[in-house]
């Protein structure tokens, strides 16, 4: 079953058209990547889905047309967006950040269980549970951002450049945790990632964007090593 479907999505920043016909599909429980050079519209695509920018075209999530919805509404429907630059609250402790992530939930016991699960998934966070978000290392902040998003118990988790600014070893650890999260919870993923190897280690299929338009979609195996991919990453 399709969880999220974008058809010919467009978006503008002022007079500048950033998206010019993005189409993609995320199956329920699937993991899809968005690839492309800088400025191809990857981040904007995620922002259009979560309602942070206004978009044209069709965006359907779980049967609902969500185009034009605000972020708090898409969050309500089960979309969790980990924005570029991580999006944690630096002035909050790790525990407060996780509480904030669970804002929409009423099931006390379930929340406590999921906090435990996140701390199990990211053991570094357990040691820093009372530290402020701003005091964490870059890797820990990224882990916290993912945990914060997961605490909403979403059906779709959108990750924007989760490896940005991290040491290679740390980035690998983060991606291994995301893979484990997917395996254990069946959560669907939509992933923007500059590092091709990391991206292909996680996703089943991917869409390639060029200047705001979907140009190619295929499975990881098909896409690996194709010219378009090399172009997408090198921007040639």
């Amino acid at each position, binding site marked *: 079953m399709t969880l999220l479907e974008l058809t010919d999505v467009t978006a503008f920043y002022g007079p500048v058209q950033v998206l010019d016909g993005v189409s993609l599909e995320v199956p329920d429980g699937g993991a899809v990547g968005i690839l492309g050079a800088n400025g191809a519209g990857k981040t904007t695509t995620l922002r259009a889905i*979560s309602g*942070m920018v206004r978009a044209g075209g069709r965006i359907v999530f779980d049967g609902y047309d969500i185009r034009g919805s*605000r*972020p*708090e509404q898409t*969050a*309500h429907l089960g979309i*969790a*967006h980990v*924005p570029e630059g991580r*999006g*944690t*609250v*630096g*002035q*909050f402790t790790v525990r*407060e950040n996780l*509480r*904030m*992530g669970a*804002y*929409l939930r009423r099931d006390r016991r379930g929340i406590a269980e999921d906090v435990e699960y996140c701390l199990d998934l990211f053991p570094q966070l357990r040691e820093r549970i009372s530290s*402020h978000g*701003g*005091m*964490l*290392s*870059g890797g820990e902040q990224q882990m916290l951002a993912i945990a*914060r*998003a997961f*605490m*909403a118990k979403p059906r779709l988790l959108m990750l924007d450049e989760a490896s940005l600014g991290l040491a290679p070893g740390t980035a690998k650890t983060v991606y291994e945790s995301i893979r484990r999260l997917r395996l254990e919870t069946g959560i669907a993923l939509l992933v923007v990632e500059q590092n091709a190897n990391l991206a292909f280690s996680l996703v089943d299929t991917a869409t390639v964007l060029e200047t705001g338009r979907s140009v190619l979609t295929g499975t990881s195996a098909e896409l690996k090593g194709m010219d378009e991919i090399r172009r997408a990453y090198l921007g040639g």
Partner: protein
Amino acid sequence: MGTFLQLVVDGLATGSIYAALALAIVLVNQSTGMINFAQGGMAVLSAYIAYVLTGWGVPLILAIVGAVVVSFALGAVVERLLVRRFEGGDPDTAIVVTIGLLTLVTGVCAWIWGYNNILFPSLFPLDTVDVLGAVVSIRSIGTILTIVVIMVLLQVLFIGTKLGLALRAVSFNPQSAALSGLPVGRLLMVGWGLAAALGAVAGALVAPELTLTPGMLDTSLVYALAAVIIGGLNSPIGAVVAAWAIGVLENLASVYIPLIGHDLKVVVPFILVFVVLILRPQGLFGRKVVVRV
């Protein structure tokens, strides 16, 4: 000893008025990141509303409760219709907007009720009790206790409740808060509403003593801002302790330091502000924000 104690208790009572306004300013700052210079003016308007209600024969306590409720709504509306347009923009612009709001609210009060002093009934009896040789009015004790209760409630709200967490989240990182499903707009309105309601309490506490005029809280606002700076913008307890310290030190200085006397006692809070800002810029109780990149 009797005089000293008298000065301290009176100082605490005056300080409690500054504290009530300071708490309202902390509340707005914690929930929207702004400093509202109109907080005093809005509190005066609330006091006038309570005054009008008593004029209709409503018992005083209910009139104050009514003013608190109306003020909550007014605060929320002001945020939605006016302040919302300037949030997220240049903080300097937002400050000028709140100063403009102060002028507007004061002008409206003067337009409707005039500049003449209006007597406002006291919530507490005017009797005094004798404590260790000092004559203490019940009103002072009542005012101090009211502030302590509000301070504790606010501290619990911010630290212990989901609403408090949400209010702070929205002021710190509205984008992240929205992505977690927090209704950002509504929370901003609630923050301003709560602050205005708190201001109504301050207005009702101070009006019997100063008598009701449109500029009744102008001076108190200056003291309240000093208290907020000294105590730390993000700490309700800090704001109250600082406001009390200002009230007490100001009283003591005016009597025991001849150079200052009654006329110069207004400089006391500013000397305190200078000293605190030099030694501890985040305020005595404030939390320094440290960010690693």
